[in-house]
C-alpha cells in the first residue's frame, strides 16, 4: 500500500481555485446588494429607528407620512398598469393579429416611448399644461387663452397620463411576443369547432396570453410605484405625495430613519405585487412557452376599420414620442411658452447672461455648472457601464460554470435581487450603509464613488443577463476547437472569445450607459449639490420654474442617449462584419 499520490497537490490547488472564484463573487455581490439592504433594515431597528416606525405607521402624522402616500402610490400603480394593459394590449393586437397597414413601422414606434425618460414626458406635459396656480410662467395652452383646470395641470391625472405614456411601451413588446406565439393553428382549431370570433378570443387567445398580461401588468405596476420623476415634477407642487417622493423628502430634510422606514415599506409594496404575479403565472399553468411550432399567425381582416385603427395606433405613437420631444426642443428655443414656435432663439443654449430673458441667466453651454454636470454624466455612464459589464461577465461565467450547484443558485438569485428594489429605495439603502464612516472607510455620502458603486449594483441584473447571453453565444466547442490547434488561453481569449463576445458586451454596456445617463431616481438621493449630473440639474431647474433650461438639458440627455445607441449600432456593424 505504498502507492504514491502524485496527483494530490495539484488537485487540491485546483479545487481551492475553483472554490475561490465563486466565493469571491459571493463576497462582492453580498457587499453590493445584500449589505445595503441588511444595513437599512438594521438602521430602522435602533431606538430612533423604532421611533420612526411608530411615527410613520401609528401616530397622528401617519396619514400624512404613510397612508396618503400609500393611497396615491397604489392609485398610480394600479391605474398605470391598467392603462398600460389597455394601450399595450391594443397596440400589440393591432400589430400582431390584424392586417393594419404599416404594421412594421407601428411595431417599432410603440417600443420608443420607453426610451424617453419619464421626466422628459413630465416636463413636456408641464410645458403644455401647467397653469398659473403655482406661480411662475404658465404653460402653452393657458398662455393661449385656454383655461386649464388644476386636475389637468397637477396631481394624479397628469402623473397617470405621463406614466402610462411611458410604460405602455414596456407592456407592448411583452404582450406582442405572447400574441405572436399564439399560432394560427390554435385559432383555426377553435374555428373548426364552429366557435365565433368573440368566443375564440375569450376562450383561446386571451387565456393563452394571460401569463404575459400578468407579467406586463406587474412590471408596469412596479415601475409606476417606484417612479420618482413624474410625481415629483407634477405632483409635489400640489402636495401630492407618493412613497418615493415622501422618502426623498424625508432624507432631504435629514429625517434619515423615517426615510429608511419608507424605503423598506416601498420595497415591501412593490415586492408584494411582484410576488403575487409570480405566484399567478408559475407552476403548471406557466404554459406560454409550450407551443413554439405555430409559425404562422392568423391576421384578422379589419375591413373598413383598417385606416381608422392605423390612425389611432399612429397617433398614440406620435403623442408619446414625437410630440413630447418636439415640445421640449421648441420650448428650449422659444422665449415664451405661450408662443412655442415663434421668436426662436438659441439664448437658452448659448446666450450670454445679463439680458432680459431667463432672469439674466446664461445659456446652458455657458454655464460652468452645466458643463461640469455634462462631464460628470458622461463619466458616470462610462464608468458604470464598464464596471457592471466586467462584473456581469464574471458573474455570468461563474454561474454557468457552476451550474446546478447551490452556489450558482445563490449567486444568480442575489444578482437579480436589485431588479425587485425600486431604485430610490436602493439609493436609500446605500445611504444607510455608506452614509456614515464604515470602519476604516470614510463616509462616502455625496461622492462620485458611492454613486458608481450603487449604480453598478443596481444595474447588475441587466449586466448578468447580457453576460449570460454573451456566454451562451460562445459554445464551449468553439473554444475547445481552438484549444486543439494549440492556442494558449490568452490567444484563445483574444482570437475567439473576444470577437464573439464583443457584440453582446457592447449592447449590454450601451444599455447600462443609457440607463445611467437618463436616470433620476437613483442619483437624486446619492449626488451632492456641488457636482451634479445632468438629470439632477434639469430636475432642479424645473423645480425652480426655469422650464426652458430644464427642457434644454433634457433635450441634451436625449441627444446623448440617441448618439450612444447609434454609435453602438455602427460599432457592432464594424466589429462583426460576418453578421449581415
Amino acid at each position, binding site marked *: 500500500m505504498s502507492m504514491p499520490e502524485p496527483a494530490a497537490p495539484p488537485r487540491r490547488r485546483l479545487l481551492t481555485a475553483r472554490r475561490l472564484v465563486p466565493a469571491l463573487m459571493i463576497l462582492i455581490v453580498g457587499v453590493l446588494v445584500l449589505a445595503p439592504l441588511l444595513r437599512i433594515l438594521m438602521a430602522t431597528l435602533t431606538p430612533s429607528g423604532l421611533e420612526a416606525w411608530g411615527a410613520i405607521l401609528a401616530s397622528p402624522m401617519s396619514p400624512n407620512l404613510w397612508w396618503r402616500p400609500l393611497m396615491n402610490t397604489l392609485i398610480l400603480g394600479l391605474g398605470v398598469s391598467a392603462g398600460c394593459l389597455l394601450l399595450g394590449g391594443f397596440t400589440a393586437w393591432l400589430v400582431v393579429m390584424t392586417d393594419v397597414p404599416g404594421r412594421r413601422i407601428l411595431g417599432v414606434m410603440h417600443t420608443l416611448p420607453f426610451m424617453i425618460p419619464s421626466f422628459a414626458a413630465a416636463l413636456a406635459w408641464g410645458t403644455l399644461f401647467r397653469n398659473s396656480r403655482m406661480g411662475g410662467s404658465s404653460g402653452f395652452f393657458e398662455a393661449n387663452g385656454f383655461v386649464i383646470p388644476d386636475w389637468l395641470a397637477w396631481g394624479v391625472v397628469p402623473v397617470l397620463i405621463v406614466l402610462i405614456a411611458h410604460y405602455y411601451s414596456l407592456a407592448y413588446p411583452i404582450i406582442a411576443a405572447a400574441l405572436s406565439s399564439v*399560432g394560427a*393553428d390554435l385559432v383555426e382549431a377553435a*374555428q*373548426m369547432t*364552429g366557435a365565433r370570433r368573440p*368566443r375564440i378570443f375569450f376562450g383561446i387567445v386571451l387565456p393563452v396570453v*394571460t401569463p404575459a398580461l400578468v407579467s406586463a401588468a406587474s412590471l408596469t405596476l412596479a415601475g409606476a410605484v417606484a417612479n420618482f420623476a413624474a410625481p415629483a415634477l407634477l405632483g409635489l407642487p400640489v402636495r401630492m405625495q407618493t412613497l418615493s417622493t415622501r422618502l426623498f423628502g424625508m432624507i432631504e430634510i435629514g429625517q434619515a430613519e423615517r426615510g429608511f422606514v419608507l424605503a423598506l415599506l416601498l420595497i415591501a409594496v412593490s415586492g408584494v405585487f411582484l410576488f403575487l404575479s409570480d405566484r399567478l403565472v408559475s407552476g403548471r399553468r406557466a*404554459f406560454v412557452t409550450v407551443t413554439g411550432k405555430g409559425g404562422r399567425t392568423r391576421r384578422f381582416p379589419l375591413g373598413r376599420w383598417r385606416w381608422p385603427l392605423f390612425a389611432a395606433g399612429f397617433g398614440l405613437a406620435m403623442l408619446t414620442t414625437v410630440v413630447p420631444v418636439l415640445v421640449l426642443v421648441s420650448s428650449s428655443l422659444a422665449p415664451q411658452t405661450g408662443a412655442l414656435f415663434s421668436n426662436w432663439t438659441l439664448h437658452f443654449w448659448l446666450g450670454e447672461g445679463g439680458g432680459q430673458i431667463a432672469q439674466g441667466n446664461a445659456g446652458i453651454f455657458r454655464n460652468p455648472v452645466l458643463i461640469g454636470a455634462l462631464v460628470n454624466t458622461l463619466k458616470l455612464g462610462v464608468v458604470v457601464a464598464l464596471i457592471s459589464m466586467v462584473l456581469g461577465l464574471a458573474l455570468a461565467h461563474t454561474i454557468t460554470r457552476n451550474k446546478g450547484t447551490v452556489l450558482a443558485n445563490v449567486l444568480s438569485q442575489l444578482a437579480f435581487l436589485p431588479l425587485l428594489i425600486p431604485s430610490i429605495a436602493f439609493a436609500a439603502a446605500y445611504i444607510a450603509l455608506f452614509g456614515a464612516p464604515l470602519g476604516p472607510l470614510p463616509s462616502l455620502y455625496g461622492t462620485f464613488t458611492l454613486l458608481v458603486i450603487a449604480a453598478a449594483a443596481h444595474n447588475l441584473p441587466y449586466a448578468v443577463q447580457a453576460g449570460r447571453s454573451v456566454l451562451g453565444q460562445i459554445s464551449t466547442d468553439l473554444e475547445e476547437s481552438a484549444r486543439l490547434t494549440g492556442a494558449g488561453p490568452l490567444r484563445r481569449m483574444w482570437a475567439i472569445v473576444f470577437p464573439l463576445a464583443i457584440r453582446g458586451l457592447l449592447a449590454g454596456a450601451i444599455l447600462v450607459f443609457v440607463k445611467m445617463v437618463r436616470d433620476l431616481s437613483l442619483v437624486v438621493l446619492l449626488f451632492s449639490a456641488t457636482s451634479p449630473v445632468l438629470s439632477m440639474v434639469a430636475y432642479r431647474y424645473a423645480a425652480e420654474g426655469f422650464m426652458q433650461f430644464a427642457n434644454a438639458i433634457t433635450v441634451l440627455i436625449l441627444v446623448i442617449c440617441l448618439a450612444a445607441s447609434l454609435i453602438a449600432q455602427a460599432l457592432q456593424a464594424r466589429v462583426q462584419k460576418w453578421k449581415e
Partner: protein
Amino acid sequence: MVSEPKDAIRITNLVKRFGDFTAIPGLSLAVPPGAFLVLVGPSGCGKSTLLRMLAGLDEPTGGEIAFMGQVVSSGAGGVVADPKKRNAGLVFQSYALWPHMTVAGNIGWPLKVAGWDKPAREARIDEVLALLGISTLRDRYPAEISGGQQQRVAIARTLAPKPAILLFDEPLSNLDAKLRIEMRSELMRIHRATGATSVYVTHDQVEAMTMATHVAVMNQGRVEQFGPPVGLLKHPATTFVATFLGTPPGNLLPARRQGDMLVHAGIPLAPAALAQGRDEVQLFYRAEQISTAKGTGRPVLRAEFSEAAPMAGRVMVTATVGPIRLSAIAEEQPDARPGDGIDLSLSGAPDAVFAMSGERIE
C-alpha cells in the same frame, strides 16, 4: 334527380390563387362515403391548400366543394358554410392543442361550443379517451405529455364531436419512425371504428400506399392520377406518379429509335413498336426488373456503383448511368466500392413506356 348514391366529397373545377400565384389551377375529384383519401405529393404541390379549403379555413377563388351533395364552398360566393356547418374535423400537423386547457378540457371545448350538456360531454370525453387509449392523461396539460400522446389527444379532440368528415394535415410528420408506424395502424383502426370519410395529406408515399382506399397524387396544383393505391402502383399514368410511388423507386431510361429498336447509350433495349411512332420515349423499369446477375440475351448497362442497402433478405443497389440514377435488386451484396463499374441487366420488356412529356403511351 337520379337517386344514385351521393359522393361524400365532390370537388368541381376548384381554383385557388394567392395574388399572382396560382396554387391550384382547376381541380376535380369525387370521393365516396367512408373512403380514406390520401392526398400525396411533394411539398408545395397544393395538397395542404386543398385541405384548408375543405376545412373552410380558406376560400376558393373558383369552382366549388360539396359535402354529401350540399355545396359548402364556392368560388362565386366564397365560403358558403362556416366550419361548424360542414360537420368536418381537422387534425393539425402541429397538433394545435390549446396549452391552457387540460387534455379533457381540450377535448371538451368543441363539445361545449356545440352546446352539449355536461354529462354528455363527460361521457363523450371518456369514450374518445378510451378509444385512443389515453384515459390516464385526462387531467394533464399538453406541455406535460409526450409528442406521441399530444398527437393522440389532437385526434381525440377532432373525433369528439363525431364529424362526418375527418381531415388530417400531415399528422405523423412530427413523430419518430417507430411511433409513426404505430400511429398508422392506430389511425386505420379509428377510421374503421368511426366510418367517417377521411382526407389525409402527406408527402410520405408509404403512408399513402398503406392507409388509403383512394390516392390522389398531386403535382403543381393538379391531380396527376387518382385511384386505389394498388392501381396507381401497377398502372402509373405519368412519369411523375411512376417515380413518386413505390419502394424502391422505379427507373426511367430515355431511349431513341434506331431502326426497329429503342436504344439507350448504344444499347438496344426494346422493340421500336412500343414507341408507337415516336422517335424518343422514356422506358420504365421497376427495381425488381433490374439485377446485377448476368442473364443471357438481356440488355446490359454499364453503370457506376454508388451504394447498396440490405432490404427484406435482398439488396437494393443504387448505381448511376451518366446523370441517371438507377435502383436495382440483387440477391447478394455486390463486391464493389463506390465509383467501381458494375453491370446491370434489364429483364425483358419495360413495365411501361412514357412519352418525353410524361404521359403514358404503353
